[in-house]
């Protein structure tokens, strides 16, 4: 199995503060499912930001899709970001746009012709069970509905890697399980999935998923699969 992400001794510091992440090293296999767990403030979101290229590390080496992501020229970042789907903890939906237009954004950003946008958007809205809310603005949607729109937006471009920060934080257990199955089915299609969560019960629901645990900015590897991704994952 190819390695899609590789971190070596990565450190991250915001300004002159203490290191948020220290000596983080791991590898993620393409097509695998990973859970990132840890207490609030442990560094989960910071680690995800490095994964979806919202932040550069202050030290260490990151390889993403086989290329050095630390020294990657700024002009090449958009191309890399289009290969990563992100579900933000705070959803970050565009308030002026309808649910359908929010979901369509990655396709439009990628230059997909307008005639080829409508069908996948309809499909994604049906996938997350929000077909009847296609024209609703985010402000009129519940937290759970916004979260599902954010997930639909993250996966509509069939990314090579999906990064989700607490994607089930605002939904009831039934919806959480449903969303998890959405991620699982995406993973079965070949997408590498990284889900940050503090809900340990979720982890057991995906067969073959790996766990990464972060504590005070340092990564532990309880399953031992991060250093050496399993070949049959």
């Amino acid at each position: 199995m190819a390695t899609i992400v590789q971190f070596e001794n990565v450190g991250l510091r915001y300004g002159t503060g203490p290191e948020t992440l220290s000596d983080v090293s791991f590898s993620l296999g393409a097509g695998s499912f990973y859970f990132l767990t840890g207490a609030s403030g442990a560094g989960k979101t910071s680690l995800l930001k490095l994964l979806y290229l919202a932040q550069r590390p202050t030290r260490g080496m990151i390889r993403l899709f086989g290329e050095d992501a630390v020294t990657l020229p700024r002009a090449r970042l958009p191309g890399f970001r289009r290969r990563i789907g992100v579900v933000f903890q705070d959803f970050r939906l565009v308030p002026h746009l309808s649910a359908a237009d929010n979901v369509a954004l990655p396709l439009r950003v990628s230059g997909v012709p307008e005639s080829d946008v409508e069908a996948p958007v309809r499909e994604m809205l049906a996938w997350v069970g929000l077909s009847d809310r296609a024209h609703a603005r985010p402000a009129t949607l519940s937290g759970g509905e916004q979260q599902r729109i954010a997930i639909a937006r993250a996966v509509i471009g069939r990314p090579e890697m999906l990064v989700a920060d607490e994607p089930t934080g605002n939904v009831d257990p039934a919806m959480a399980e449903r969303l998890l199955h959405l991620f699982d089915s995406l993973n079965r299609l070949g997408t590498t999935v990284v889900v940050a969560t503090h809900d340990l019960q979720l982890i057991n629901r995906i067969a073959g998923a790996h766990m990464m645990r972060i504590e005070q900015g340092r990564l532990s590897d309880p399953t031992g699969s991060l250093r050496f991704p399993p070949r049959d994952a």
Partner: protein
Amino acid sequence: MSDATASRAGRRLLDNGRQTRAMRWVMAVMLFLTVLAGALGLGTWSAVAGLDSQLAGRMTVQLLGATDPAVRAVVDAVQQVPGVRAVRAVPRAEMAALLQPWLGDAGLDADLPIPVVIDIDVAGDTGSVGDAVTARVGALAPDARIDRAARWLGPVRSFIVSLAWLAGALVVLMATATASIALLTARSGLDTHRDTINVLHMLGSTDVQVSRLFQRRIALDTLVGGAVGTVAAAGAIALISARVQALDAVLVSGVALGPVDWLLLAALPLLFTGLAMLFARVAILAALRRTL
């Protein structure tokens, strides 16, 4: 965004009604003033050209108490000077008619010593040809008074040229102000839509795509506002032109706009739109370069 986001969804990404309306009004005022200044510049410039072509090549010789043979001798002599296009002794009846508004019927009195006026039309300016004419007339009639139109029109011409340059400077200033407004609007738009732009970046938008969103919005505001301002200014110019024509004064009648001038004025909103787009793009790209 890409061409696809030229769609209504793409335009709505930066939706901000109140800011847009303000920008359009500002642009309307800017273009109104710019078109007026441009019209002043073009009009005065055409007046200068008119002065140069109609009056600058003119000379006048005044002979007091000269007999008809003496006048004819001067006319014949001047006609021999190379560069002189036409020479005409103004008939006494015509002179009397010209003076009637000031002298009344007294101007018709044959005993009134009205000077004989000889109009001379010189090709080009009156420099060297004027000197030759002056020498030739001076030899035949030492007391003759010779006026070159260019000499007494010099200060007038200089004043009109100054007005034209001032108008040009005003247009440049307005263009600079418009560019600054576009720059400030783009920067303020970046702040207003920072969250949206961050999301777009995370979804893989390039800086150029983000910049296009702002360029399109600023171009639309400049074009719509500019068109309103230009139409209003054109109305004002047409009104002023009608008043100027009604004056029937020689000096101001040259202040007129031709078809090319109107075309140039009509192009100003387009020019300003391009300028605003360019500066918005520069501002946005420079600001985005400082982000990841």
